[in-house]
């Protein structure tokens, strides 16, 4: 390492600059590397490039997607205005216009002759006006000074200032001046009015005509103003929207709705929503754009959403509250639009470069799933106007998802499966073994899901023979359940009924409100979901004995005290007939099947596995040596009941306090995608897609996985149809963690919410129409007159006390003797009776529970009522007390003897004008045409309303409703 560097040795001498040129005259120096001319050129090129790129940057920044839509919408709006203007022009009465024009011309001509006089008056008026301006200003300024001096004077007096007198004197001077100015101003006002009158004497005729003309053209002028606003000319538009200038008053700008009551749920922070959707969806709340293309199209349900008169006005609810998506976004992609179908997805990908946004946790709900946005505010058992979501909630109730998973709204619903504490008295072990293996093979509509022989536990997988194992598990559970069950001693049922009569009874007496026999029409226009409320009655003969059925249908609560099935008050004969019919429904193929033979080795393997979960395998193997077959079955059975969570749906003695085994679903709609295991499945990583797959085949995420048997997914397969899956998924995605403030929540009163819950639990809508939905039973009854009643306006209709009495025992009175369907006895508790009666009253905003049924009338009116009652031939259809209806051939109607104790008088006045409006399809005629025109103009002066009152009065006060004689009370 030497001291000298190679560079130092050969340093060249520093060249001396040419001396003759000044240092500033650089162009001429010889010691130059670059030519300045070339540098100038490069500088010019790079500067131009910089300029170009800066402009490009501004343009790129200004070329926002939404501006394109706003421009297009503006064009459409102008076009529409022009069309409207043309229409308005065509609508004008041309003759009238010409006439007014003619008169106007004449008036103007006449006016011209007085030009000299008019000019004089106008000149005077001009002078008066300028004078007025000056005087008025003097007055106002003096007034200001006066006010200030008045304050000073008050102040000085209050503090007894020495100069108080002086100050107040000054104020008085000013006051005198002020009064003088006021006088002058008043005089001028009078003068001006006089001059104007003089002028009007000449011009009033012309002005009137001009006004008429303007009125004729009012529509056109309004549209002209709108057109000018929309289209102020190209240059103006360009300038308004130019960069930087656009801060003043741009016509293209982001539209937003600030929602201070609705929040985006961010961790630790609730941020108010700011919806910018209307930046592109410009016509969304205007009715005229119904035919337009997206994004301009009008909202399809303006009566329900967006409009100011709807329950969800746009400035209070915005868009993303219901639709989800990123509220602040202003581009198609960022907003989080979700395609409905594969085709739409492809179209969007092509058109907008759409792709799944992996970071957006709340993408928009696809349009067919949008109902799930309702639930966050409408948290009741039923969401108004959301049939698919309600169907999903009904399904959850019927299939008992809440037995294993915590789902809000189902906390109080009772378990869906039958009691297993007495099962040994009802079924046989072999039946149960076969049933557990595959419930759907027994009956297609079985609600019990399949736990075994699913995709992850049938055949041989990873060396485990699942078929043998399943048999061992099923057997162990059966044996265990049997050991826990104590059969209930029931009297021997009658079994000598007629199956034929039984069939007729089942079909007519009302069983079909909750039950069905065999397959249901999935695609029926009428919802059939409530007919799944009760078990499908297929193949009952292969399951239970006729004697058991007899006892059950006679009084379910005697067989199982917690039974939800109401009593139809069947006679012994009827019960025997039904038992005979149901036990004749058999599944011979199933009966012939042999129950599985258990392989003890497989059972041992299961037991050892279960034992080693709590200790070591060595200990487990030691322990099993000391167990006999029964002990093994008991041990395995108990542990397996725990593993599969059978107690979620069934009462099993010893498991009363067991905790449900499933994942909590209270915030299923906000669950992070990363928390969902998609396994090896090639599906879109999307919440709804995951739930869909899970419901279609709950074990599918185990496909291709290597797992020990005790690690396998446990959720059983319910065999849901695609439609059912989609409804349930909608419910799951509706369970979001977003909180909404009280002001925007469902305004339904607590009474209505509680009522809906009970109505859903008791399946009232299986037979009745309530809140516009239900009566699923009608598909089984051909004549509309025999359908159970529509309960529309029920709250206004019946007296609360009467309704309560009726519901506690519907058998004691027969309102509609002509119906085959019976109102069942539900054995409502007092609380429940209160809930139902209050629900109906609250729904219709009717008084509750203390009401007046007094009717004030005159004898004449009652008489008129009687006349009308006879003339309308009411008694032809309505029986009155024990008096039957007069005409057997006519349609049957409710007994009128009940009117006074049952109805609220004011309801009749609502019902009579248009019975079909309250109960569509009702046979009751509209006796007053359109509710106003009477066929009897002589009665009560032909006043339809008075006539209806008369009929009501007759029913309540006259012999109409009062006619004694008990209503044919049902013996059943």
């Amino acid at each position, binding site marked *: 390492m030497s001291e000298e560097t190679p560079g130092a040795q050969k340093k060249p001498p520093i060249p001396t600059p040419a001396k003759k040129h000044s240092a500033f005259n650089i162009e001429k120096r010889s010691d130059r590397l670059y030519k300045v001319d070339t540098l100038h050129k490069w500088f010019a090129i*790079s500067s131009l490039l910089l300029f170009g790129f800066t402009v490009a940057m501004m343009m790129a920044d200004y070329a926002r997607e939404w501006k394109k839509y706003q421009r297009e919408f503006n064009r459409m709006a102008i076009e529409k205005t022009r069309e409207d203007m043309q229409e308005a022009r065509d609508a004008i009465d041309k003759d009238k216009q010409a006439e007014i024009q003619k008169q106007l011309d004449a008036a103007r001509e006449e006016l011209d002759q007085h030009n000299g006089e008019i000019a004089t008056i106008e000149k005077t008026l001009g002078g008066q006006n300028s004078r007025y301006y000056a005087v008025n200003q003097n007055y106002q300024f003096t007034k200001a000074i006066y006010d200030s001096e008045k304050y000073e004077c008050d102040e000085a007096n209050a503090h007894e200032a020495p100069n108080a007198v002086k100050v107040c004197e000054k104020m008085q001077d000013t006051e005198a001046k002020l009064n003088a100015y006021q006088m002058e101003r008043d005089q001028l006002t009078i003068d001006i009015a006089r001059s104007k009158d003089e002028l009007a004497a000449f011009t009033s005729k012309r002005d009137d005509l001009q006004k008429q003309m303007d009125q004729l053209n009012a529509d056109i002028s309004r549209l002209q103003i709108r057109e000018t606003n929309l289209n102020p000319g190209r240059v103006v538009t360009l300038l308004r929207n130019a960069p930087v200038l656009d801060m003043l008053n741009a016509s293209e700008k982001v539209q937003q709705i600030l929602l201070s009551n609705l929040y985006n749920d961010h961790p630790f922070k609730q941020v108010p929503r700011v919806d910018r959707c209307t930046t592109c969806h410009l016509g969304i709340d205007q009715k005229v754009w119904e035919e337009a293309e997206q994004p301009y199209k009008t909202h399809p349900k303006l009566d329900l959403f967006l409009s100011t008169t709807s329950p969800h006005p746009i400035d209070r609810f915005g868009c993303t509250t219901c639709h989800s998506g990123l509220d602040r976004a202003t581009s198609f992609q960022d907003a989080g639009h979700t395609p409905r179908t594969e085709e739409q997805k492809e179209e969007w990908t092509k058109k907008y470069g759409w792709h799944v946004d992996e970071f957006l946790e709340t993408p928009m709900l696809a349009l067919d799933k949008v109902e799930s946005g309702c639930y966050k505010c409408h948290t009741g058992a039923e969401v108004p106007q959301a049939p698919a979501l309600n169907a999903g909630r009904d399904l959850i109730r019927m299939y008992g998802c809440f037995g294993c998973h915590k789902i809000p709204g189902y906390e109080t619903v009772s378990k869906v499966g039958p009691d297993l504490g007495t099962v040994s008295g009802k079924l046989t072990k072999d039946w149960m073994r076969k049933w557990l293996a595959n419930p759907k093979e027994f009956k297609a509509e079985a609600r019990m899901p399949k736990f075994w022989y699913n995709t992850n536990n049938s055949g041989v997988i990873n060396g485990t023979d699942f078929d043998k194992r399943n048999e061992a598990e099923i057997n162990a559970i059966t044996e265990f359940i049997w050991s826990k069950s104590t059969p209930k001693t029931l009297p021997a049922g009658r079994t000598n009924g007629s199956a034929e009569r039984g069939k007729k009874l089942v079909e007519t007496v009302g069983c079909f409100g909750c039950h069905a026999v065999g397959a249901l029409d999935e695609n029926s226009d009428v919802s059939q979901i409530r007919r799944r409320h009760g078990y499908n009655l297929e193949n009952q003969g292969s399951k239970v004995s006729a004697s058991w059925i007899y006892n059950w249908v006679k009084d379910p609560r005697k067989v199982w005290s917690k039974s939800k099935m109401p009593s139809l008050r069947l006679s012994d004969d009827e019960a025997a007939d039904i038992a005979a019919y149901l036990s004749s429904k058999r599944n011979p193929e199933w009966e012939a099947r042999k129950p599985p033979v258990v392989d003890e080795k497989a059972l041992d393997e299961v037991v050892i596995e279960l034992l080693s979960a709590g200790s070591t395998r060595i200990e487990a193997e030691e322990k099993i040596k000391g167990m006999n077959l029964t002990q093994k079955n008991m041990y395995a059975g108990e542990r397996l009941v725990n593993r599969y969570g059978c107690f979620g749906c069934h009462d099993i003695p010893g498991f009363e306090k067991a905790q449900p085994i499933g994942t909590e679903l209270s915030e299923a709609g906000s669950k992070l995608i990363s928390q969902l295991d998609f396994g090896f499945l090639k599906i879109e990583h999307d919440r709804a897609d995951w739930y869909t797959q899970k419901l279609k085949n709950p074990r599918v995420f185990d496909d291709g996985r290597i797992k020990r048997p005790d690690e396998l997914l446990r959720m059983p397969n319910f065999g849901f149809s695609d439609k059912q899956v989609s409804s349930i998924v909608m419910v799951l995605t509706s369970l979001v963690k977003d909180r909404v403030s009280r002001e925007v929540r469902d305004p339904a009163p607590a009474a209505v919410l509680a009522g809906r819950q009970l109505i859903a639990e008791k399946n009232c809508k299986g037979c009745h129409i309530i809140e516009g939905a239900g009566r699923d039973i009608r598909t089984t009854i051909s004549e509309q007159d025999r359908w159970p009643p529509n309960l529309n306006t029920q709250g206004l209709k019946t007296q609360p006390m009467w309704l309560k009495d009726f519901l506690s025992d519907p058998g004691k009175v027969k309102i509609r003797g002509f119906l085959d369907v019976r109102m069942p006895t539900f054995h409502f508790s007092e609380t429940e009776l209160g809930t139902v009666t209050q629900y109906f009253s609250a729904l219709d905003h009717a008084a509750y529970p203390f009401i007046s049924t007094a009717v004030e009338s005159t004898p004449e009116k009652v008489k008129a009522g009687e006349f009308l009652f006879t003339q309308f031939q009411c008694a032809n259809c309505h029986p009155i007390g024990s008096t039957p209806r007069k005409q057997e051939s006519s349609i049957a109607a409710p007994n009128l003897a009940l009117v006074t104790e049952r109805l609220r008088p004011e309801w009749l006045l609502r019902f009579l004008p248009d019975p079909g409006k309250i109960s569509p399809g009702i046979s009751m005629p509209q006796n007053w045409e359109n509710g106003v025109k009477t066929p009897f103009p002589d009665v009560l002066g032909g006043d339809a309303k008075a006539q209806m009152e008369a009929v009501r009065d007759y029913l309540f006060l006259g012999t109409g409703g009062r006619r004694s004689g008990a209503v044919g009370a049902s013996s059943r």
Partner: protein
Amino acid sequence: MEFIKEAINWLSDPKILILGSAVLLLLSLKFPEKFYSNKSGPLVFLAMVIFLILSMFDENFRKIVTKPDNVPIVGMLFLVPFFTWFSLREAVRNDRRTTESKPLIEQDETAEKVLTWPDLVYTELICLVVLTVILIGWSILLQAPIEEPANPGASPNPSKAPWYFLGLQEMLVYFDPWLAGVVFPGLIIVGLGAIPYIDTNPRGNGYYTLKERKWEIGTFLFGFLILWILLVILGTFLRGPNWNFFGPYEYWDLHKLEPLVNVNLSEYIWVKGLGMGLPTNPLIREMFGFIAILAYFLVLPPLFAKKWFKGFYERLGPARYNVMMFLLLCMTSLPIKMALRWLFNLKYIVGIPEYFFNI
């Protein structure tokens, strides 16, 4: 095709990648004439472009490379080798000239003067304008990758540091945060600041040379290229969810599992070596680790001074020599720890989680 991809995936494993690159660097410094010739640069450049273009056909590769955050690092992939090649080629050319007793390139060039105004300032101005144009163009083409509102409850996986810190993040695989995140970054800055005081070799001032500064250049290139740039590249392109390693053509599977079977030195000695349980007193338990660390920092410098670094010791004097050795040993501790991890699954040399003290 698949086979080639598999092979490249295999080659990109940190063990092979880091070891291979280090060997390649050493070889290139051993045979600079071969590696830093006029042809080698364009050849490597061409090979890299072809590699990039061909690899773009692979979906997984394309996804990672074209991510807007990663584009600058792709640029760095070309720039860093270019400048390394360029400077070392100049060095090789100069070294050749010195042996042939010809003037250096720099001497030839500086024979002519450049005026500050207008030549230098004007060219700088033009350069500035052109670079601004490039930056604006870039920002128009590749929008800033702004995502949805962040959710602390669901941080992205992998969570990556900004690209220039990915070397540090990679160090966290091998060292405890207090070392990899605090001590080492501090030492890097201190060490870089100390270089002018430690490096007394006057040669190479104002001109390129390799022969006369092989040790200095080699040490720097090892630290910069292998222990920094390579780790940045590794962190950017090859570390996926859960900071697992993924080959350039592999899908970043969230569920990939890697066995975590690392053990501490104490377990090696007490449990495996001596066949007894771990002592309860952490100081006794970690005794051997402390001895190893102390030996590393206290025994090695004098030993080296006596044997291999005799010349250094004489030239630098004890103060400078010991500072240099300390910094050098800290630097080499990273590859040493890497090697120990790869070979013996060694987790910590000293592991006292009771006091959050792990080395």
